[in-house]
């Protein structure tokens, strides 16, 4: 069977002028309006408007280079660390514009925490990894209070049972899956409102992945979660809504079951059925 591939410019011609699906929600925790992102002269995100619903999981999917991670990193200003990066448009956490020049990014990143692709525990003890955030943000008045936060965070991350008797050991001594749960415990220790996850399971085996996914499922009762994933099945399993990015544009957004059973835009359909990407 001959395979004829559509050249990139043909795919670009298929991009919709407006995002397909409902970009707005009734109870948004974060709102983004007409967001453009540039790396130097190159436009990485093109006019993206999207609401992030409170206490829901939204998956950002799309082929490599589509801008999903760039968009994710805009949500807590992680792109500030990249000198050539410029963000336009408006991104709000509740009613606060997070790109307001008066905003201090340190407390912002406590409110909008992040878990990265590769587990990155600090070279400190398991206890100190989790206690680090509450300490620098002054969330605990005394040792007992800090102990409680550490225990509660490790419990919520499903790790307490495995590390309770070795809290003084290095975080880097844990397995990959445990390290990633430690990073999640570290993120939730400062009681964030939103957790951003950038391919959090890509370095993990299927069992460790399943545990993280189960954790995401539980955490959505308390937190708003935005996850970038290359795994279609993962997006289908963990998220309430799914947003499909292509060439920097938000092509389609909708309920996860709708997107994976009956997507409306041709590009979404082609991507999720494995016809390109």
């Amino acid at each position: 069977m001959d395979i004829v591939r559509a050249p990139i410019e043909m795919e670009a011609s298929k991009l919709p002028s407006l995002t397909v699906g409902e970009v707005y929600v009734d109870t948004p925790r974060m709102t983004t309006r007409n967001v453009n992102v540039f790396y130097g002269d190159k436009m990485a995100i093109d006019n993206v408007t999207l609401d992030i619903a409170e206490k829901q999981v939204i998956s950002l999917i799309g082929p490599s280079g589509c801008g999903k991670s760039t968009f994710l990193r805009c949500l807590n200003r992680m792109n500030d660390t990249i000198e050539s990066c410029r963000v336009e448009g408006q991104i709000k956490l509740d009613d606060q514009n997070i790109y307001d020049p008066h905003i201090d990014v340190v407390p912002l990143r406590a409110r909008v925490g992040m878990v990265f692709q590769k587990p990155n525990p600090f070279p400190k003890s398991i206890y100190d990894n989790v206690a680090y955030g509450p300490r620098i943000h002054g969330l605990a008045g005394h040792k007992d209070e800090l102990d409680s936060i550490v225990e509660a965070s490790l419990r919520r991350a499903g790790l307490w049972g495995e590390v309770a008797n070795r809290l003084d050991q290095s975080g880097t001594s844990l397995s990959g899956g445990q390290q990633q749960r430690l990073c999640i415990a570290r993120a939730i220790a400062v009681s964030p409102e939103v957790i951003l996850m950038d391919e959090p399971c890509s370095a993990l085996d299927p069992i460790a992945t399943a545990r993280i996914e189960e954790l995401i499922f539980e955490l959505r009762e308390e937190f708003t979660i935005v996850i970038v994933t290359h795994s279609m099945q993962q997006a289908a399993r963990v998220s309430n809504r799914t947003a499909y990015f292509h060439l920097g544009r938000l092509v389609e957004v909708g309920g996860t079951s709708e997107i994976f059973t009956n997507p409306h835009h041709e590009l979404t359909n082609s991507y999720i059925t494995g016809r390109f990407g």
Partner: protein
Amino acid sequence: MESSPHTSSAFDQDLYEMSEKVRSLANLVERQLKAVTQSLSTLEDKGLDKLIRRDKKVDKLESEIIEQGVQVIALRAPLAEDLRRVLVIQKIATILERMGDYARNTANRTKVILAEGPEAVPVTNLQQMAELTCEMLVDVMAAFDNVDAEMAIKVRNGDVKVDKLHTKLHRDVVKSAQNNPDQIVANVHLLFIAKNFERIGDYATGIAEQVYFLANGTFVDEFRPKADKTSWNA
């Protein structure tokens, strides 16, 4: 929505094979229906035993399709239109297998009618009904081939004609049974055969509904025109 090939050509091959197999199954069931219709309309045994034995092929092909669908789901994790295609093919295969069962059952009953001496059984409308259901099967599989929801709905709505013929045939058979009490056994079997074809028509509408789902990703409205009044108007 037009479909280009998958990045994985083996996935395309799997889906192609499944589609081909369900077409083969439909052709086989069509052959069964035509064969039994021929025996019924001529009131002669035109290879009924062979037809009955051939039903095993129908069952086997259905199993193969279901098994392949399970494998595709497990190995390829299909989504969207691909997932719908796998599920729809499996469902159509199951429906076709049931149609095949009705053809076999009709063949068995036809043998009894022929043995009983079929002089007084009214088969004219039955032949028309059988041909109509066979046409429905052919048309609905063409709708499947072309993923044509409009054509599928046309087939679905056409079932009314089968229902009307069934109602009429039901009356004729009851009358025939009253007039020829010695042929009661043949007439009772004929009633069951009529019901078989009425059900085959229903199954064709079931395939039409699957084609609609394949094309649109949504289910067709529950309402379907019906005209089978045998239960209260005989």
